[in-house]
């Protein structure tokens, strides 16, 4: 029989026994007067209830405190503190629950550490050969056909971006805390990214917020890559401020995306059938949404009379979410 159950059972039994004793004592009292009867019942039963309450108070208080500590540990684990553990006290169900929680938390911590190690190793295993290819292209020197060399450079850059996206997608899922949190000038970042392309027009106002500059750069780059790949020129980027929110709009003049496809645009590995494109892993827009949400914002698509609009809203002056 369980310890906790025994304790409750014994407490209950004790209470009943106390009531029974009180009842027997009450019956032995000379009932010459009904007033005495009522007075006795008013004194004895509350006194008994008080005794029971005082007797069970330390037990319930201790039990509740242990459950509170367990709850705090569960919350801490949920918030990303993988080292959160709870002290195991006694041998009852709560103690066994604490042991089970500690085992589960330990397992989760091991898995996340292993996952991080795997990501780091995968990154190394994939990027080192890529560095070799890049160096080999450079060592080909002037003997190589410049057109073919430029093509190889483009392929290397594409492969590098793909590796980056796959690793980033896993990393955003696995790692709760941001790599860096610093002030980012969104207009400057947009200008820098737009300059990578010809014929991309930027309009906007200055908007500064704290965040991970590498992730926000990736967000903008993916939106522009998406517009270049699937949309049509002219591509326009607008940065607006609506109260405490910055709105980044990337608009292109390509054919409007049908509703049934638009609903899946931000899902990982989703690739539109109509695009006729085979490049890319379908991670670009899902990363855009993941990064926007990590910064407390949102990403969505809307069709306009002129074409397609991808909109990212980012609250200004808020800390980066840690989960």
């Amino acid at each position, binding site marked *: 029989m369980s310890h906790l159950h025994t304790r409750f059972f014994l407490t209950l039994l004790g209470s009943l026994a106390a009531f029974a004793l009180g009842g027997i004592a009450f019956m032995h009292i000379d009932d010459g007067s009904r007033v005495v009867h009522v007075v006795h019942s008013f004194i004895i039963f509350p006194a008994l209830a008080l005794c029971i309450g005082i007797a069970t108070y330390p037990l319930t208080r201790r039990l509740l405190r242990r459950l509170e500590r367990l709850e705090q540990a569960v919350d801490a684990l949920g918030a990303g503190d993988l080292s959160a553990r709870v002290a195991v006290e006694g041998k009852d169900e709560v103690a066994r629950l604490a042991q089970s929680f500690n085992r589960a938390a330990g397992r989760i911590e091991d898995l996340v550490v292993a996952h991080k190690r795997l990501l*780091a*190793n995968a*990154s*190394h295993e*994939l*990027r*080192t050969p*890529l*560095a*070799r*290819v*890049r*160096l*080999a292209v*450079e*060592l080909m*020197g*002037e003997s190589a056909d410049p057109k073919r060399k430029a093509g190889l450079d483009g392929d*290397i850059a594409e492969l*590098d971006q793909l590796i*980056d996206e796959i*690793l*980033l997608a896993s*990393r955003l899922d696995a790692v709760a805390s941001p*790599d*860096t949190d610093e002030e*980012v*000038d969104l*207009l*400057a*970042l947009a*200008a*820098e990214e*737009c*300059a*990578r392309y*010809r014929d991309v027009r*930027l*309009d*906007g*106002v*200055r908007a500064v917020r704290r965040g991970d*500059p*590498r992730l926000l*750069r990736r967000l903008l780059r993916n939106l522009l890559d998406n517009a270049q790949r699937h949309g049509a020129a002219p591509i326009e980027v607008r940065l607006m401020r609506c109260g405490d929110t910055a709105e980044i709009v990337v608009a292109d003049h390509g054919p409007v995306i049908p509703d049934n496809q638009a609903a899946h645009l931000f899902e990982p590995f989703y690739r539109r059938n109509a695009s006729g494109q085979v490049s890319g892993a379908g991670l670009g827009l899902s990363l855009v949404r993941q990064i926007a949400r990590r910064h407390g914002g949102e990403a969505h698509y809307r069709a306009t009379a002129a074409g397609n609009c991808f909109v990212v809203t980012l609250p200004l002056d808020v800390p980066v979410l840690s989960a």
Partner: protein
Amino acid sequence: MPRNTRRTRAENRRLRFGPAISTVTRMAERILLVEDDARLAEMLSEYLGGAGFRVVHVGFGAAALERLAAEPCDAVVLDLMLPDMDGLDVCRQLRTKSDAPVLMLTARGDATDRIVGLELGADDYLPKPFAPRELLARLRAILRRRGNGTSSEAPLCFGRLEIDRAARTLRIDGAERMITSYQFALLVALAENAGRVLSRDTLMDLVKGEALEAFDRSIDVHVSRIRAAIEDDAKHPRRIITVRGAGYVFAKAQE
């Protein structure tokens, strides 16, 4: 008759590696390359050797520390993922034995590595897959920095571009580019605020000390001169970008 387009070996070398840094007049600088990938190390040795360096390769962290204790070197190119030791540990131990500049190479896309590495005393950091010319430019920059002694104003490096504030020189791929003193001040003001939009008025304020020239030519003209010196394609600038109605941005991420 077709014009003879064959280049001499020296010309080819200059095109691939940039101008030689006085390799004729002084001994080739000795680079300790710590890289566990033998094929990459072989290629790097060939590439850096072609640029006039003497490369010694080791594949393990412990071997690098032993080698360094036995024979000094001018610079260390250190991969962060080694089979026997963490590259950051190697960097920490290396700092206690030598003051040779360290250029870290890493394949991990983690900003923490860069921050920790630089705190441990590494001089520069380059993520894989790096552009070979950028590696060369950065290696030359850290060697030059050490050669000039420690300065309160470390050079600003953006990809292949190096702005040496102490020497007031500007280099791309190791080749010096000439601009006026005012334009240099303007470039430094932009580079020190990389990743931020600076209005023309703010720029004028930042280069106030360099006055006079500001009155005879507009900021825009100076910027176009700087672009001519530092951009690969001045008509489509990637380093100094105009933001309509706001000013200029000096790009933080450059090739």
